[in-house]
């Protein structure tokens, strides 16, 4: 903070972030474009290496749907048994809310996102549509080479729009800068775990989500500011239950749902909300071929998640370890309705938690849910039972 400025409270920063994050017209992106004349590339929620977009001189923008917006046309494109996210994304596209994006990247996540990439080609033939495959073969000479090639193809596609060639040096610089953002985010995640009363997830979440619509430097500054403000805050500590929330990596729950969990007595100490923003939190190497570095990060540094195949992975082991690392007392499965990846993964994770004696509960949501009372009840009962259990043992 510069001298002379009053330090903002975490609540004030979070309020600003919420406005940016939940603006389904992507106002910040439009503003950035007007100010800089630059190009922007959207990407669907789950992991896209933003470094490639940075190095192509473009603004990476996370397109995560919207639960706030009225869906008028989007529903006509999807059957009732398909999750909600593609409806709001299509609605955003058809109503011009995504006009500020010159490209859309669809990372391999599930069949819905995959097919949405083709729909985009049909609906918006004038835009660049890029489907980004990810490797399920983990041999660096096989899957690694393929994925590095995929990233090069992405770089080439984006360069055609921005006119900026993605050189190795530019990509290395982008990785270095993103390492800094990752460090900041890592610190904040650790602070949340150490002192969850200082960093409520409802605030951390909007802070992360604002980063999906802002230039990196401006967002880094916000994260720093929030970190300092949260650290300095003196919020009362409650005897809440420490929980990990899992299953929300793609379609996002309404912010009201996160607040409901907090109201029900949860300290969310880790989660996979908006996973693309924290899928990789380690520093990546700066030596060697930068495309290979990014490719390798998929194998060596990424979080476990349903769309990422890992040979010989003991399903749920990652979650058990995460729960232990964060000293969480239970896990809440919160998955979007009709989300095959999350819901097919869930029983395997639940088995692992049971083997490890970790309490869990589950519910489903849609991004446009407005009724939180049943969740308040369920989460309240869950936290009570955790607390009773820990007192008894």
């Amino acid at each position, binding site marked *: 903070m510069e001298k002379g400025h009053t330090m903002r409270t975490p609540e004030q920063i979070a309020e600003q972030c919420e406005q940016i994050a939940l603006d389904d017209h992507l106002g910040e992106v439009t503003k950035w474009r007007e100010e800089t004349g630059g190009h922007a590339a959207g990407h669907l929620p789950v992991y896209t290496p933003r470094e490639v977009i940075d190095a192509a001189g473009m603004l990476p923008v996370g397109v995560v749907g919207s639960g706030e917006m009225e869906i008028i046309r989007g529903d*006509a*494109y*999807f*059957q009732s*048994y*398909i999750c909600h996210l*593609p409806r709001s994304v299509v609605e955003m596209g058809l109503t011009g809310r995504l006009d500020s994006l010159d490209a859309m990247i*669809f990372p*391999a*996540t*599930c*069949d*819905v996102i*995959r*097919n*949405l*990439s*083709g*729909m985009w*080609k*049909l*609906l918006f033939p004038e835009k660049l549509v*890029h*489907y*980004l*495959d990810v*490797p*399920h*073969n983990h*041999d660096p*000479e*096989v*899957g690694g*080479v*393929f994925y590095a*090639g*995929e990233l090069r*193809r992405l770089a080439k596609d984006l360069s055609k729009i921005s006119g900026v060639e993605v050189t190795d040096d530019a990509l290395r610089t982008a990785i270095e800068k993103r390492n800094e953002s990752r460090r900041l985010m890592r610190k904040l995640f650790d602070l949340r775990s150490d002192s969850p009363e200082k960093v409520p997830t409802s605030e951390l979440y909007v802070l992360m989500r604002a980063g999906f619509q802002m230039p990196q430097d401006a967002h880094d500054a916000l994260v720093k500011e929030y970190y300092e403000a949260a650290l300095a805050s003196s919020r009362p500590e409650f005897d809440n239950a420490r929980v990990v929330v899992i299953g929300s990596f793609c379609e996002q729950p309404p912010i009201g749902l996160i607040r409901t969990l907090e109201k029900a007595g949860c300290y969310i100490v880790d989660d996979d909300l908006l996973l693309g923003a924290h899928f990789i939190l380690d520093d990546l190497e700066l030596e060697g071929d930068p495309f290979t570095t990014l490719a390798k990060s998929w194998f060596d540094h990424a979080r476990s998640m*349903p*769309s990422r*195949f890992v*040979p*010989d992975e003991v*399903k749920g082991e990652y979650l058990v370890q995460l729960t232990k690392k964060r000293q969480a007392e239970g896990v809440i499965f919160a998955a979007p*309705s*009709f*989300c*095959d*990846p999350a*819901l*097919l*993964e*869930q*029983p*395997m994770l*639940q*088995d692992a938690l049971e083997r490890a004696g970790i309490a869990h509960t589950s519910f*489903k949501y849609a991004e446009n849910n407005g009724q939180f009372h049943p969740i308040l009840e369920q989460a309240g009962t869950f936290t009570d039972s955790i607390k009773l259990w820990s007192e008894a043992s």
Partner: protein
Amino acid sequence: MTEKKKDEKEIPKEPSMIRQKELISGYYDELATAKEDGKKVVYTFVPGNLAELLAAFDVLPVLPEINALQSGMRKRSRDYIATAEKSGHSEDVCTYVKCDLGMMEQGIGPTGKPIPEPDMLLLSYTGCFTFMKWFELLKERFPKAEVAMLHVPYQGDGEITKEMRDYTVKQLETEIVPKLEKLTGKKLDRDRLKELLVRSAEAEEDLVWTWEAAKHRPSPIDGYFGGVFYIGPIFTAFRGTQEGVDYYRLLRQEVQARIDAHEGPITPRGQLNDQKFRIVVEGPPNWTSFRDFWSMFADEGAVCVASTYTRVGGLYDQGFRHDPDDIMGTMADYCLGCYTNLNLPQRTKLIAKYCEEYEADGFIAHSVKSCNSFSAGQLLMLREVEKMTGVPGGFIESDLVDPRYFSAANIKNRLESYFQMLAQRKTGGGAKSMEAVL
């Protein structure tokens, strides 16, 4: 019920159908005694399956989707799905997976005989993310099974690039073949594989001929409901075998005889010679009420002249043939080219092409709840096909193997209105598109 049974008896079966049934039930018999016979068992999926490679190693493939659809047809799936849901699987997810897991839990296969446990889970990952989760779930159940992953990149840009092909070939060479060699304790016999591929191409030739026979009027085949019988052998364990070649030769002769006699295919309502509507269908059928579903078309005089579901195990009619002179490359091309690995614009174009080439009167999307791979985007495809061809689309919904989602009355109503609209169009009036009807 008794009525239906009587019906079934009265309808003569085509010789190829009888042969197909024999092949499939022989296959299940072989599976039932696989362990006693000392055979290794490899679970794998239909789209992008490596039938010839498995046969070259003398291992037996188990195709979980085939188990699921057989369970559906034999009315066992409801029970299997209920078992899986009771043990914690969500009602929202693909019912093929739940049907299979429920079946495993009950320990009995669709024919009432046990299915052997896998020695290997060979995930040739083509065209569907759910496959991956499915095998992870099976891995939990069979922890001793070796897992081999063949990641087949998706045709996001509507083409197979050199990089995609190289990646697939490399995986075959460095991952799949070595793991099969380890499993069986023998080296891959490349000459044998070559011979198998020669036979595949031979059978593929006859299958394509059969598909194209639907261009005749009346069409001698039903390319959707009848088509699922025709694909049985080539999509499963019989590609590359002499039995497979013989089956497709028999099928071809049978279809030729019907062309010569100006006859249509045999349907649950008897031979369909008076064909009022020629229909292209997108999406898999419903298996639990398969005969009823087919009858709804046959009752209206509708014959399906082409379908996309029958292309999930290979787009042979678009020119692909297994090439014995490039054993790894051809397997890669096969996997990369399956229908479910096409992007939406490609799928749309293909359907439009079918509508034109087969002179279809209508196009119906059967959307199944289970399958995001097929269903997501289908409504847009429907509109695009209409725009491209002027052929009016119809839309119906149910599920593959979960009978709770097959609402016979609803589907029948929709189909009746749809065919009425087609009839009016033929006489020069009526609504011009599905929106006006559905």
